[in-house]
């Protein structure tokens, strides 16, 4: 059972990383245009390339 001493913090740490990643994606506006993101995948980069 001693292994739990490591496993529990590791599990919690990974979950916190996931939570932080979600907050980051929320803050960087990735949920502003869900439909657009789904469709932009289909646009070839080389032809679009505005920048």
């Amino acid at each position, binding site marked *: 059972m001693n292994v739990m001493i490591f496993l529990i913090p590791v599990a919690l740490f990974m979950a916190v990383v996931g*939570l932080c990643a979600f907050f980051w994606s929320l803050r960087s506006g990735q949920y502003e245009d869900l439909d657009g993101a789904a*469709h932009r995948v289909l646009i070839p980069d080389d032809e679009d390339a505005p920048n």
Partner: protein
Amino acid sequence: MATVALTESGCPSGLAPAADAETRRADPAAFVRRDAHGAETLELLIQGAKCAGCIRKIESGLLALPGITDARLNLSTGRLRVSWSPGTVAPSSITESLARMGYGAAAFDPAAAARQVDEEGRKLLRYLAVAGFAAMNIMMFSVPVWSGDGEMGEGTRTLLHWISALIAIPAALYAAQPFFRSAWTALRARRANMDVPISLAVFLTLGISIAETLQQGEHAYFDGITMLLFFLLIGRYLDHKLREQARTAARDLLAMQSVTASRIGADGRVVAIGAAEIGVGDTLLLASGDRAPVDGIILEGVSDLDRSMLTGETLPQAVRPGDQIHAGVINLSQRLVIRASARAQDSSVAELARLIEAGEQGRARFVRLAEKAAALYVPVVHSLALATFLGWLLAPALLRFVGFEVADVGFRVALMNAVAVLIITCPCALGLAVPAVQVVATGRLFKRGVLVKSGDALERLAEVDVAVFDKTGTLTLGKPRLMTNVEPDVLRAAASLARISRHPLSRALVEAAGPGLSADNAREIPGEGIEAGDARLGRRTFAAPACLDAEDGAAELWFAQGDAPPVRFAFVDALRIDAAQTVSALKQRGIKVELISGDRPVAVAAAAREAGIETWVGGASPSDKTARLAQLRAQGFKPLMIGDGLNDAAALAAAHASASPGTALEASQAASDLVIQGAALMPLIEAIDVAKMARARALENLRFSALYNVIAAPLAAAGFLTPLIAALAMSGSSLFVTLNALRLQLSWRRA
């Protein structure tokens, strides 16, 4: 080559119809702003963009214009943001280019559409993420506790409970904030809403679980409480998203309504300004095709006005200098110079806006299904929990009193069981029951081109039993169509004259004749007709003064050439293709149909006959329409109003539910619950069917939630609840409700 032809007209995948070239094009110059980097930006609302092809076509098409530095389309909201360095691009060239690509574009009034990021939605997502994170991680500790039941030592179990507590306490206190806030607001107003039992359950559960952990007991509900919050927040988020979508749609429509005007300054220069900036006495230029932004008096020019949006009248009205012009009418043929006699907010349109407000107040009394359920639910749950607490506390004493030998169970057990009742009855499923159904229903309708604009619109639409149609532009297309059969040669000759005019009758004639050449020496005589050599096309008094008036009330053009006898072209405002089909489909569903129009009774009667409507009224003023709706409501009917004009806006707001076609004036779209895109009316029938099905699903869900509580609450009150049962019951019921809502997606494959 085929793709080139396709891409010329709107969405390359054909998902959305190309925008009508006639769509109003306000000069966007008044709406240009400077952004933080000093670039000029313009926000436009795009109509008709549906797919990846549209994104690419619009963005690369605009970037190809010289000077444009950035163009980004948000497909979810339909907003396009264009930037360029100051002075390099004429804003009108952007809208023109979009129109050439086949998309409608309307500039935003930055004040009306102050870009508000959906802060509330973001916060809810953050709460949701925290609750989900906590629920999943605590479950990681709860599963060993449950499965190790009997084998696990007390020390290990308590350790796992303590870790759960460390996650659950901060997470629950953080994620339950929306419930605390709403409950507190309700309590201060001496009311109780669904959030009161939720908040109570959060506090009591946390408290009792901590107490249990301190005493090394086995019943800690840390997993239950975080999972509960997770499910409740999903429901809350869905509900919020629906309302936000409706709010954005309404705000966008209002923002688009802000008409621009061209003011002629003292130095003769024309400046584009917002309608709100027009002052009394300003001289304004009204090009042909423009809508008058304010009431005024004509100073120069002779033209025809389309007043159908104001009155429903289909015949154009001829005007000359000195005549009155009302806000909302469209100038058809020649440019006019007018002097504003009122500001925008004092014009006749504003009067209609006040009527709309009055109508909407009546609708605000509608109580949503979920609110009705909450009103029933809250007192029942609270009294049940209280009864459980008192029962466990007092029952032993009572039993002893009648002679049984029982020991007191104590305060702790009584409280524990009362809390168990609060947890198990917590409105997880109830909170998801209605929003889940509505999200599925509105999403489905959106794909069919029906925009649902208010959160409770579908609930109201499901109850409708009378449909009141407007005629011009709603039941009909609002465009004249040639109905006289004439020799092709004569038609071609007449069309060659008509091609130089913007008058709607001329355009209808050209449309009937097809492509061809225009007469070289043709010139338009404003208010009379067109002349080319010995040929004349126009009014009877202009082209064929010797002929008699046909007196059938139809819109007409006369054509005379040389010595040949004059020919009369008569026009009708044709019904939408599926108008009759829609009317009969409504009747099939037991909905009575009425037609009420401001047009001449002759025209209304003909349209009613053709569409199969028995009850009709012609020559109705806007207040007649609202009066008819009030009368229907007084008789106990729940009327659905379908209209498009400014004269319908007040009636749309006063009806139980309302719909307008996508071609409707912005004010009417803003006043109605549903906006139907495209030329067909049948999506209305689908919307009604979906609304009814959604209502049935929502009621099923509510009934299921009630049944669940009827079974679970007594179990909890009797003390049988364990954390494992609570977790299973809550997730199971929420899952059931969500799946039942999704069933709505599948059940629409009927013929």
